[in-house]
């Protein structure tokens, strides 16, 4: 497919980027442009559909086809586009408001239908464009203009929701992890069916450092497990920690290898296991790391592949139309 070498520049528009300086969206944009160039599909075969919010401005900065729609509905618009034009590489971009609040219904349904879309959730755990109200992924107690005494809502675990919705590809990464995010995006694009990528994204103005040190070069390794299929779930600066299954609490717990468990006892990642994926997605407790990477990848037939053959036919010609109109018409 990659007949002409493309560069990130080929996917860059003449539009001035209007995000706040230091916004995590810049890093994601950089990664996406690089990934699109690496994948090598010509820009006209790629379409980005977005909803409303800071993240949703994304299509304006990519020289592909792009549709900036309405709040929460990008997945629905993209579904129609992909079903009408299956040959296009269609991406959906939205924030936590778009995907999990106003458009939550579309998120769960596009995933269970398994329409071949690449869905990128920019999760910054705050409403940026409307000036800083708490979002469906904000931690309990988040102080914001709409929750001056702290929010009372429990946050949604996006990856867990996606898995529960029947997604066949669920991954996590973070904005500035340029040694991680591009690979995850490539995996998502290559996956046939709906692929859901939660990208932790820093909102420097309204929710700075919401995800703590996970993107920090020095502190990050101690709080992040980069899950890889078939590999042990190990983390720590010196890769001295790992995850073992704790039968008392029926969930994973972090241990120091050697002290609390042997290397052989460390669990291995199996991205085809839904049970494992859910356990990693919802892991919490003292010292529990954040699991990034492809949590789950188990392809199955896409929506289009499941459709009966006659739903994929071309328009009727006039003679077929004539037969249809006549139906059981009496003619004498």
């Amino acid at each position: 497919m990659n007949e002409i070498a493309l560069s990130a520049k080929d996917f860059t528009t003449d539009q001035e980027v209007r995000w706040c300086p230091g916004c995590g969206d810049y890093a994601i944009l950089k990664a996406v442009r690089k990934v699109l160039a690496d994948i090598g599909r010509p820009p006209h075969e790629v379409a980005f559909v977005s909803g409303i919010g800071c993240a949703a401005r994304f299509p304006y900065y990519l020289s592909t086809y792009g549709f900036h729609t309405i709040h929460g509905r990008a997945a629905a618009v993209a579904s129609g586009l992909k079903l009408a034009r299956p040959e296009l590489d269609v991406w959906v971009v939205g924030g936590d408001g778009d995907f999990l609040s106003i458009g939550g219904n579309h998120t769960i349904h596009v995933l269970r239908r398994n329409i071949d879309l690449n869905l990128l959730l920019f999760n910054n755990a705050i409403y940026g464009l409307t000036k800083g109200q708490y979002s469906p992924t904000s931690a309990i107690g988040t102080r914001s203009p709409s929750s001056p005494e702290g929010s009372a809502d429990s946050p949604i675990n996006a990856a867990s929701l996606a898995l529960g919705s029947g997604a066949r590809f669920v991954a996590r990464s973070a904005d500035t992890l340029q040694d991680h995010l591009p690979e995850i995006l490539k995996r998502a694009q290559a996956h046939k069916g709906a692929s859901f990528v939660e990208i932790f994204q820093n909102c420097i103005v309204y929710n700075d450092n919401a995800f703590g040190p996970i993107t920090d070069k020095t502190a990050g390794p101690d709080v992040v497990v980069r899950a890889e299929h078939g590999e042990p779930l190990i983390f720590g600066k010196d890769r001295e920690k790992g995850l073992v299954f704790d039968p008392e609490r029926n969930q994973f717990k972090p241990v120091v290898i050697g002290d609390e468990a042997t290397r052989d006892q460390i669990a291995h990642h199996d991205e085809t296991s839904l049970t494992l994926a859910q356990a990693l997605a919802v892991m919490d407790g003292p010292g529990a790391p954040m699991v990034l990477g492809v949590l789950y990848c188990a392809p199955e037939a896409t929506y289009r592949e499941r459709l009966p053959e006659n739903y994929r036919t071309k328009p009727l010609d006039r003679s077929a139309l004539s037969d249809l109109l006549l139906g059981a018409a009496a003619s004498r």
Partner: protein
Amino acid sequence: MLDKTKNDTTKIEAKRTQEPIVVRFAGDSGDGVQLLGAQFVRSAADSELNFFTFPDYPAEIRAPAGTTFGISAFQIQFNSDTVLTPGDAADVLIAFNPAALKTNLTEVKTGGLVVVDEGTFNKRGLKKAGYDADPRDAGLGEHQLLSIDISKRTLEAVAETGVGRKQAVMARNFWVLGLVLWMYGQNRKPVNNWIDKKFAKTPDVLAANKAALNAGHAYGETMELAVQSPASPLHVSEPYRVITGTDAMALGIAAISSLSGLETFYCSYPITPASALLHALAKIGSGIRTFQAEDEIAAVCAAIGASYGGAIGVSAGSGPSLALKTEALGLAVAAELPLIVINVQRAGPSTGMPTKTEQADLLMAVFGRHGEAPLPVLAPATPGECFDIMLDAAKIAIEAMTPVIVLSDAYLANAAEKWIVPDAEKLPDLRPSRDLPDESNYHPYLRDDVTLARNWIIPGTPGFVHRIGGLEKAHDSGDISYDPNNHDKMVALRAEKIARISERCPPAEIETGAEEGDVLVIGWGSTYGALKTAVDNLDEAGHAVGHLHLRRLWPLPRGIEKIASRFKKVIVAELNHGHLRRLIRSEYLIPAEALNRVSGQPFKIADVEAEIHQLLNR
């Protein structure tokens, strides 16, 4: 009570009549009244008769048997001549139980015949219907009563077939059908053919239904019930079929893909009464793609996505559905994409009366979006026109790159009439121009000088990648723009684009009646038959009354003002509190009067006539 069939007073003189005949069936939701009606239609169509039907049913699927709120009715008017309505009142009512009699007696003409199933007029049945005493004892006033133990006779008729009692009782509708076919001299053969096909897998049910049909027919013959068969209609040389508004609309949607060469992408979320359209299209399958979305908003958004991708997105629903789609319609206006949104109107507000008809969504369709978001609104007048209106909608949507709203209603959707099948070869060409503009100066909001439509370049086209969306665009580059003068210009451009549609469409014309004179009756949508008939009647009586019926509600067709100026008074008749009247008044400063009814029921011709009379005399 004795079988009263031998009473001579119930006999009707045998005659061949030119007068239209109106028959109404009423029973429990589970009695198969709608099926009975549809089968009677089959037979009437086979005789080339003209007819118009009115299925009038509750929202409850199976309300408790014998109660008044579970009664489902089916009315048909048939004749050798043109028939435009299901008739104001029935010549004959067949009531399957006391509740059906109670709720439907008012629908019978003075002197009309009421047939009841005596087997259901027991203590329990009367009590459930809320009767303290058997209403038959006192007689039915001006109406003739024919009390037959249909239950018992059906059970006897099907005894040999081996079906269980429940199934046997279910065959009552075929017994009644047999009787009615006898009464109106109609052929049983089309019904028998249908039974053969429908019940091929259950031979006992097949046999029971046929036995009941024949027994009902034989009963009419044995009792020497008079036959009143309609005069032979004029022979129709073109192929015709029975069609409901829903079926016509489904065929119209299928035809769009064929005539435009574009895929038709139909997205909807189930809602009464529009769901039937989804069923009809899903059944057609080939050439159309149907998508049952997770909600109304997803339905219209998926349709918009498909249109963005070069298909024709169509999304249908009823009342609340259109309310939920308003934001997405604004997007389609801003993004300037072709789209068809159908609203099969029903009685509101809120859930209202989901199976009943109303025309109270017109102003929502015309104005119900935030911002200046004009779009064309069309309305078919008859079941058959539901086909044509879809082609018009597609033509306008593609030509002007705009969403179009089509307003049907519950009455049109369910009503059936005889439809002359159009010749597919003669239907219009709806293929859009796919000429690519000059690549070097391209932007997505380049416009056609005449239609002002922007170019429609679909994703996948090399050399033309572009971004569109709901943000305001600079008129000369398509880039996001907050420039005040640009916004003012874009608002004006979008309005002008819609206004110009009426320049390309034929002007308004008088439908029937006087071209000038005392009263001009303006209507729209499904009230066509009642209004035309009323005006024809007044015209025959020597009054100078004209009828103007609008299919294009926005932009309004040219020439309305001129026509109105030829009449002393203008009255706008509609099933709402004056939506079109407000449009007419505000657009033309005409002091139009109102003829409104918001009962969930279609207009009665007599009521329309009476109100116009009042206006004539004022």
